């Protein structure tokens, strides 16, 4: 393949851009909807625009090693500016555009940004308000001039003016920029991405051109992405995934990246574009499904019936395919009819008619959700990745998608499971370092290049795919020494709409038992439909019929756990429904709504004892903090129920993590 031959020479983004401009100059590279009309730029045009900006930056005095911070939503010009910076030997640093000034100040100062490119007045104002604390800052550029006309323009420049100066400077700076492009190699820093910093200060992950391009190339070839593919860039530019999809893979394969008109128009834009390659976190797929379901409720009788009939058929076919059963002629005819009447129009409505490859990642995706999209014929797959790995660690192959696993290692990635079950990887994508933080780098990456993910998992012996169970620090052992993965079970429980939160206990215990928080919206709605009267959250939570319903949900979870070779012993034997909603104000959840296991175990120690002590009910008193900071206490008598467990599936043999 010519691509393979030329890839050695094109080891950086600027070189790849020139290569693309020469070999596929007339193909579209970027699209953006502006004033209601899709505008597009070919690779040749993108090359010209990018070079003009790079030359402009050089007239402003950008030097190799300088940092250009980019703050804004997905816009083609912002993407181009990253390569412009690289052409001039500088390093682009995309920053989350919704960061508050304080976070921004930390990142810009830490990165030592000398140049900042802002999308609009909002971002310019933010940077100006912290400019005093950024001694390195020299020049500020902006894209959208609205509201900025009257600002002092000594160090503030409109994007287009910089490009104009750049075009005029071709004669004086052209040779120098060619020299700089030639001088950078794959080993040089390509980009610096800051982790979102949910735990402590954000860390700057330094990735080289080799990291990005080798990973992008390997993953794109794995999926057979080609230059005629297209995708929509709508996730934050500062997120490594966007950099890999919209820059890395787009530059290595030459496909087209479109930017939506605004965040709110995203769904319209997908529909108009019909991308063939699409990434979305589970949350977005969930919103899509909810929208579809609500609209079907309002649809006419005939449409609704057809929809439910064919969706049920699709699910049945999906199940057959999973079990490897043969399909009958009638099945195939119904599938054909369903495609004509339901699946096709539905995919068109979702803008997914042309999707060849769709990925989801980031958090656990519910089986119903996952199966729905796969059953209507969307090739939805999962991947497992990290900023430190240039995203790809594992991904699902097209022909072996299993809900529970996250796929096989991306070509070039080695995986090792540590003694405590933690997943380690080594790949060409492994990051260079955390910027100005040698200590954290040494903690994460060992001298041989292995990186700890912080997740516990194992290679599934049947499928040969990686399965992630839980965060490594949460994984424990039952009293009999068997593996206990609480978050995995809790996620399974939370996929039921009735269950808002669940906390599973079991570390050093004989069996697993759970606290359940009902979802007031879902259960309240159910109570209304079933004429169940209740005066308070507590009363509803303790209603016998609610217990029955939750008990059924847990029994179903147990049945699915029983089929699981690794976790069949983690079935839940007893549970209680909590009398209050777990709340961040009471310290039971983190601000990002993650369960604080230890705090809960301490705070509700009496309830845990009652669960394991075999009682049928327990009287308890709990302190609560109201939103205005006052404290109060609530008392309740909570019922405790046993749940039947299922026998482990016949094939289930207890296996230890490899």
């Amino acid at each position, binding site marked *: 393949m010519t691509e393979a031959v030329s890839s050695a020479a094109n080891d950086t983004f600027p070189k790849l851009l020139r290569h693309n401009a020469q070999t596929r100059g007339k193909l579209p590279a970027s699209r953006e909807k*502006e*004033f*209601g*009309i899709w505008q597009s730029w070919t690779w040749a045009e993108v090359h010209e625009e990018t070079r003009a900006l790079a030359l402009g930056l050089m007239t402003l005095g950008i030097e190799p090693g300088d940092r250009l911070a980019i703050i804004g939503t997905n816009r083609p010009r912002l993407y181009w500016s990253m390569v412009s910076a690289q052409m001039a030997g500088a390093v682009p640093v995309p920053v989350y555009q919704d960061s508050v000034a304080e976070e921004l100040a930390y990142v810009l100062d830490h990165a030592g940004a000398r140049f900042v490119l802002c999308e609009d007045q909002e971002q310019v*104002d933010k940077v*100006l*308000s912290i*400019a005093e604390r950024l001694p390195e*800052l*020299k020049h500020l550029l902006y894209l959208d001039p*609205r*509201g900025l*006309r*009257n*600002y*002092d*323009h*000594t*160090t*503030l420049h409109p994007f287009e003016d910089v490009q104009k100066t750049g075009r005029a400077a071709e004669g004086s700076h052209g040779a120098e920029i060619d020299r700089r492009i030639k001088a950078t190699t794959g080993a040089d820093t390509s980009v610096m991405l800051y982790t979102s910093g949910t735990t402590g200060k954000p860390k700057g992950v330094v990735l080289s051109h080799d990291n990005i391009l080798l990973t992008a190339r390997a993953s794109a070839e794995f999926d057979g992405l080609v230059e005629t593919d297209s995708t929509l860039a709508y996730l934050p530019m500062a997120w490594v995934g966007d950099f890999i999809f919209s820059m890395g893979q787009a530059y290595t394969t030459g496909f087209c990246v479109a930017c939506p*008109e*605004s965040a*709110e*128009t995203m769904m*319209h834009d997908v529909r108009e574009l019909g991308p063939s390659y699409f990434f979305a976190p589970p949350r977005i797929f969930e919103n899509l499904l909810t929208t579809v379901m609500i609209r079907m409720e309002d649809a006419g009788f005939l449409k609704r019936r057809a929809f439910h009939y064919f969706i049920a058929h699709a699910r049945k076919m999906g199940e057959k395919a999973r079990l490897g059963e043969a399909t009958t002629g009638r099945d195939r005819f119904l599938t054909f009819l369903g495609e004509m009447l339901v699946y096709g129009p539905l995919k068109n409505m979702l803008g997914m008619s042309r999707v060849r490859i769709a990925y989801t990642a980031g958090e656990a995706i519910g089986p119903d959700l996952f199966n729905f999209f796969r059953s209507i014929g969307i090739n939805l797959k999962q991947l497992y990745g990290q900023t430190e790995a240039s995203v790809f660690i594992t991904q699902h192959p097209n022909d072996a998608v299993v809900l529970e696993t996250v796929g096989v290692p991306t070509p070039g990635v080695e995986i090792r499971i540590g003694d405590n079950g933690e997943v380690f990887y080594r790949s060409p994508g492994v990051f260079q370092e955390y910027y100005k933080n040698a200590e954290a780098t040494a903690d994460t990456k060992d001298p041989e290049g292995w990186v700890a993910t912080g997740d516990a998992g194992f290679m599934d012996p049947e499928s040969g795919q990686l399965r992630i169970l839980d965060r490594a620090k949460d994984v424990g052992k039952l009293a009999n020494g068997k593996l206990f993965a609480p978050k995995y079970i809790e996620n399974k429980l939370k996929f039921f709409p009735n269950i808002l939160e669940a906390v599973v206990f079991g570390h050093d215990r004989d069996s697993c038992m759970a606290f359940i928080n009902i979802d007031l919206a879902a259960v309240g709605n159910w109570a209304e439909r079933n004429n169940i009267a209740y005066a308070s959250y507590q009363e509803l939570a303790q209603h016998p019929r609610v217990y029955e319903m939750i008990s059924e949900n847990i029994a179903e979870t147990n049945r699915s756990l029983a089929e699981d070779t690794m976790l069949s012993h983690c079935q839940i034997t007893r549970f209680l429904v909590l009398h209050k909603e777990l709340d961040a104000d009471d310290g039971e959840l983190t601000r990002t709504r993650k369960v604080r296991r230890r705090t809960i175990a301490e705070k509700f120690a009496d309830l845990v004892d009652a669960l394991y002590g075999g009682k049928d009910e327990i009287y308890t008193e709990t302190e609560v903090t109201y939103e205005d900071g006052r404290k109060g206490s609530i008392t309740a008598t909570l019922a405790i129920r046993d749940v039947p467990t299922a026998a482990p599936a016949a094939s289930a043999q207890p296996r230890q993590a490899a």
Partner: protein
Amino acid sequence: MSHAPTAAAAETDEEYAAAEEAHGIAVRQIGEVVMDIRNITLRFGGVTAIRDISFDIREGEIRAIIGPNGAGKSSMLNVINGFYHPQDGEIWYRGKKRGPMKPHQIARLGIARTFQNIALFKGMTTLDNIMTGRLTKMRRNMIWQALWTGPAEREEIEHRAAVEKIIDFLEIQSIRKTPVGRLPYGLQKRVELGRALAAEPTLLLLDEPMAGMNVEEKEDMCRFILDVNDEFGTTIALIEHDMGVVMDIADRVVVLDYGQKIGDGTPDEVRKNQAVIDAYLGVSHD
């Protein structure tokens, strides 16, 4: 690096203005009087809605008309707009005395307005509603437009481009194709502003643009009004109930009470005016 002042950095208006001057930034220019309203009296039968009111509006300024309920604010706006014909008094617009005119003639003069209780076409989309604002600019007659070829088509494309700029300006891309009847109140107000802007007015009249809005919607609307004034140099006259809003964005304020003018000046002057305080807070009768 020496920076331009920002609203966030400067504590007070004076500080901001001083910083602007220090940086040699073109401070907003308030020009000549564009509309001079002289001794207007308006009666409905025996009721005198407006009694002998005079004030002026200068080029490029934001002029607010405030007052308690029934003070005659909307009547005043309707007089400016040419919808009501006052029994006494004169209106001079750009150096010429204005005789009785029909509303569409006024619109041709470059005066556009929005209404207190939204007057949009509920069944039409945002785009079509704003497009109606271009009507006074359409040159081809109905037959041309029905045939929709050649010049009429070119003309429509031009108008559509202008409308798209407004949609972009007001950040309402996501509701471009939504019938306005389905939109929340705050957005409908924004669409109405869009329609008024589509006529490319030199004088824009806003009748209670923030009425019934929540704080966030009000803030958005304030920003759009300031941006319109700043970007297009449009002179704006607005009626508003919300004193906070008025004092923030207006250059000069005229205060009405029971059909009479009781105050006129900058927000600071008006704030200190005893008659205005009495009108708003009431006078104790002890």
